[in-house]
């Protein structure tokens, strides 16, 4: 956890974007069929979405969450066919979001 000179802290946001219910997901269907081909007959449904990790600076968690919400609404998810969820936690002080340490 780092605190910047200006009092801002670094946060890690994990954003999960998935297709809205009812929207056709050809990729999910193909992965499901692929798993069946490999013998994983117990799988009955697959949906494929996006997993984004962001690091950002914000004075507190509430601000970070508000900003990430705005980013999701504006850019990260396509409101016509997608929905999103996210979690914000304190970043561990490293320069890059998880996935690039």
């Amino acid at each position, binding site marked *: 956890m780092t605190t910047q000179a200006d009092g801002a802290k670094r946060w890690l946001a994990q954003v999960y974007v998935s297709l*809205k219910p*009812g*929207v*056709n*997901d*050809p990729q999910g*269907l*193909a992965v499901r069929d692929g798993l069946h081909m490999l013998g994983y007959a117990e799988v009955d449904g697959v949906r494929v979405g996006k997993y984004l990790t962001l690091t950002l600076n914000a004075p507190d968690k509430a601000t970070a969450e508000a900003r990430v919400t705005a980013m999701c609404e504006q850019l990260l998810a*396509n409101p*016509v*066919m997608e929905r999103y969820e996210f979690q914000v936690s304190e970043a561990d002080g490293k320069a890059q979001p998880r996935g690039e340490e």
Partner: protein
Amino acid sequence: MQVTAELLKEVGLSADEYGLIVEKLGREPTQVELGMFGAMWSEHCGYKNSKPLLKRFPTEGPRVVQGPGENAGAVDIGDGLVAVLKIESHNHPSAVEPYQGAATGVGGIVRDIFTMGARPVALLNSLRFGPLDEARNRYLFSGVVGGIGGYGNCLGVPTVAGDIFFDPAYSGNPLVNAMCVGIARRDEIMRARASGPGNLVLIVGADTGRDGVGGATFASVEDPEASHRGVVQVGNPFLEKLLLEACLEVLKTPHVVAMQDLGAAGLTSSTVEVASRGGVGIEIDVAKVPRRETGMNAYEVMLSESQERMLVVVRPDGLDAVRAIFEHYDLQCAVIGVVTDDGLVRVRDGDKVVAEVPTTLFTDECPTYVREGIESTKIAELRARDVLAVPDLAEHGDLTASAALLRLLGSPNIGSREPVTRTYDSTIMTNTVVPPRVGDAAVIRVKGTTIGLAIKTDCNPRYVYLDPYLGGAHAVAEAARNVSCVGAEPVAVTDCLNFGNPERPEIYYQLSRAIDGMSDACRALGVPVVSGNVSLYNESGSEAILPTPTVGVVGRLADVRRHVGMAFVEGGGVYLVGALQATLGGSEYLALIHGQVAGAPPSLDLELEAAVQRAVRDAIAQGLAAAAHDTSEGGLAVALAESCIAGKIGGRFDVSAVLAANGGRRDVALFGEAASRVLLQAPPGGEAALEAHLQERGVPFQRLGTAGGDGFEIEGHLALPLAEVVRAWRGALS
């Protein structure tokens, strides 16, 4: 069922139309029937405003094998083969979700082609957007281009040509027109006409979900955002590829009676159309339709627009063989009904009959409207404006000829399309002889023959806006001219009429006059209309788009090796074929430099047009030409620059004769636009032969200079290093 005004609005029917349904049916329709009438009597399926006008198109000719009325048109191209062609709009879905809207547009047009038993061999796209300095327009543009590439590339059909135009009138209502060309054996064409009571009706391909329920109705009203409540359609090109291969294989068997893709209004329109064309009845059971979701009702199943589905009518004794082929491709197919002889479309949901309507009620009895068209006085005034009131180019200052040229080359309406075409696979199928950007039209070869096909879409919507009759004629002339410029003889037209709300007299006027102009040009150039599509109600915030009758032309080369591109070669003499007079009316120059869309568009002498095109393509076929390029947006100077850029070579040109013919106006000579004009280059040393040919044909021509060097010079007007010209042109779409 309580039929309220709201309910009627939802299904897109007027109170009068509802009254007509009750009268003809002799009772109130069920909910499912009402939804089906809404779809079938929408403009999109029923053509209620455009049908009387479309009758004006010439649709016959010696090569026509299938005219309008089927999934696509077909023309004979020799060697026992036909080219199958069709263009279609996906404007409204693309406004809502650009990537998927455009992708499913491509998917739909490809199905129209292979439904006919033809293998799709080329894709084109004609696009219109608002200016790219608005973020929303950039989003739409990149989404649409991404979707077109995403679908076509995966499918493995090359995208070989198209056109793109920007104007503020398309902000909020982009146009996405996709065209496909296929090849079939003439004697193997399949038609979508059900016959033989007792024959089985199959649905093949994707499961049915709630995707786009009400799409056909939605394409026929203004303001897509507000009216679209269904689930966005997501395309699956992977599944379409399997469907394509399986359908072509199934059509080689003797078991198939008819095939019809499920497009707008899904099962409703596909069942009604195969029954109506065949003059029979049809009965289906929605309970037998495989679903992607639970809890769907009959109404939703009948109106779902889930993609990648086909309706196939087979003889009962062929069912097993047909099923085996689909299963080979991992495709599910379900028997959902039978052909009947009672002339009714009957829909069951298990034991219950949920709709039962005489087939012809949906089709023949669909009301048509002949409206009165009145030209907008505002547009008449714009046309009458004196465009020469603008100041001419100056020797010094901001408005020099070289500054204007560089600005025009950097215009999104003129500059390089490479950022777009580079994302489209144009070489798959190993037929592409002239890929995008290399010639005025694309050329593909027909394997196993010497034949080539040239294809291009075009429409200058400013011309149509300022003068719908003339503009409509120009659209046909320009698309055909592009095809002639690679050496092909234009043989067929497919068109997509993109207009605003036809219930407004000034829009109806545009539609009606544009069709007249197109029809006259088709007649004069000897190219029949064999297929097409109508997209009305293209408006946002009560502003209509520019009227845009997109024209796709297919041409034929007897010997595909005898073609040319637009690139100048070192040392060849360059000629301007056609008239020398041009005008600033409706020009890109006037719009870009002086901020005016005004004046009368260039005049069009159809006889001269036909003669110029014939002279040009014959010169190419006889090996007398090294390059050809028509002069369109940006005029003569821009066309010369484009051919130099393509050839990576400079040139020195003298336009004094053109200047004289235009009363000494430099702006008109350099950047004025005109029809029936083509830059034609002789191979080095071939000048005399080319001149003799042009003389013999009696078409006007003028030598302008020679290509060579690394400078671009128009004597007395501008001189620029070619590299600077290229730089300006490259940056247009970035």
